[in-house]
């Protein structure tokens, strides 16, 4: 049976979403991590009154590390369950990668939609440029999903798991992370430099293309 790449992506995305909603461990870990971290930060700071730059950095640190709590399992869970080989036999490489990437992107967007309003409320933060904030979150989570999916594939079968994913992710994701903090600072009342959004978009595309090209070398191991 011939399946087009788009149908393949849709099928993999559907499979991931069904499995994620059924077992919920990755979702619960990410959401609870984000909520716990936000509560700790808010309690320590006793509410608001923080500089926009510090607020932006805190928001992205929470989003980044919460995503590390769930996004690293997209291939390791298949490996543990013994379904990775079946996926390798029946799933076209690009459909698997892009389907899983799309699922991770969706998961992170839902996480951001959940945690950002809570962050604004707990930290007493005012958004002066909501569209910039929305665009930054969209591009930031896309970058984390693109890099995270390939790095999750790399760490499958590694002898250590704890911390390895974050160690590999941080240097690769810094080009998304730093402009995201600058733009979010702008959205919280600082200067907005829209050219950073273009830069983030280009880097996200580079990460997606790079992951797509390199994934074949992992998927078709001799």
């Amino acid at each position, binding site marked *: 049976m011939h399946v087009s790449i788009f149908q393949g992506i849709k099928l993999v995305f559907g499979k991931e979403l069904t499995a994620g909603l059924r077992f919920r461990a990755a979702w619960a870990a990410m959401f609870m991590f984000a909520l716990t971290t936000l509560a700790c930060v808010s309690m320590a700071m006793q509410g608001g009154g923080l500089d926009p730059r510090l607020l932006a950095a805190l928001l992205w640190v929470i989003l980044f590390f919460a995503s590390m709590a769930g996004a690293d399992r997209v291939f390791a869970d298949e490996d543990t369950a013994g379904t990775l080989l079946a996926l390798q036999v029946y799933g076209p490489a690009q459909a698997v990668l892009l389907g899983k990437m799309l699922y991770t992107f969706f998961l992170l967007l839902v996480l951001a939609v959940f945690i950002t309003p809570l962050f604004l409320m707990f930290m007493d933060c005012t958004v002066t440029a909501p569209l910039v904030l929305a665009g930054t979150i969209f591009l930031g989570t896309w970058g984390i999903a693109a*890099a995270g999916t*390939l*790095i999750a594939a*790399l*760490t499958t*079968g*590694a*002898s*250590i798991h704890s911390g*390895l994913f974050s*160690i*590999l992710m*941080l*240097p*690769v994701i*810094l*080009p998304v992370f*730093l*402009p995201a903090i*600058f733009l979010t600072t702008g959205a919280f009342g600082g200067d907005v430099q829209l050219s950073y959004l273009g*830069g983030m978009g280009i*880097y996200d595309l*580079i*990460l997606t293309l*790079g*992951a797509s090209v*390199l994934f074949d*070398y*992992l998927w078709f*191991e*001799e």
Partner: protein
Amino acid sequence: MDIRGDTLLQLFIGILTIAVLGAVFLVVPPAEGLGDYVRLAFFHIPVAWVSVLAFLMSAWWAAAYLRKGSQRVDALSAGSAKIGLIFVLLATVSGAIFSKMTWGAYWNWDPRQTTIFVLLLIYGAYLTLRSAIPGAERRARVTAVYALFSFLTVPFLVFIIPRLYFSLHPSPVINGSGSIDMDPVMLAVLLAALLDATLIYFWLLFRGVRRQLPPAKRQEESA
């Protein structure tokens, strides 16, 4: 390279290193504004250069591994990263000392400090991944993919970071207008120091790989 060639190269590197050290302490004049602190730059710039060179070469050999699957190029890629880590540590420490002596603080996230720190993180991540993957063939493949994936940060390090942060660093040797803006004596000594550091890098790298691979494998790979 045979044993005689290796000995000659060692001799040349030894003589060049002594000549560079002599020139740095006896010939190079104190720089305007920096005084004698400028002498540290003749160590710092070459080690920073090799840090970047080792990163590029590691990615180059990673690509060669994915194309050919040769054990020798995997050893070169990994060896380059190991040496790169040592050089990037030296560049970070010497840069922090230079920063303290000239600007009053060890670290201020200057664009070049940020770049070298990201490089340090990449080397650390690459070597951590290498130690965490069991099985030689999978380890080689996975780390080659990571070396190339992390190489995607290069445009950001070169073009974006300098726009995000204000820099106190002196202008590069070849400045924005493409002209060379440096005292001729200093420039000659700096170029010699760069050559010396580059030769030390290649010597350490090929010697390490030669020792790591058994003789039969070396002959088979080079054939």
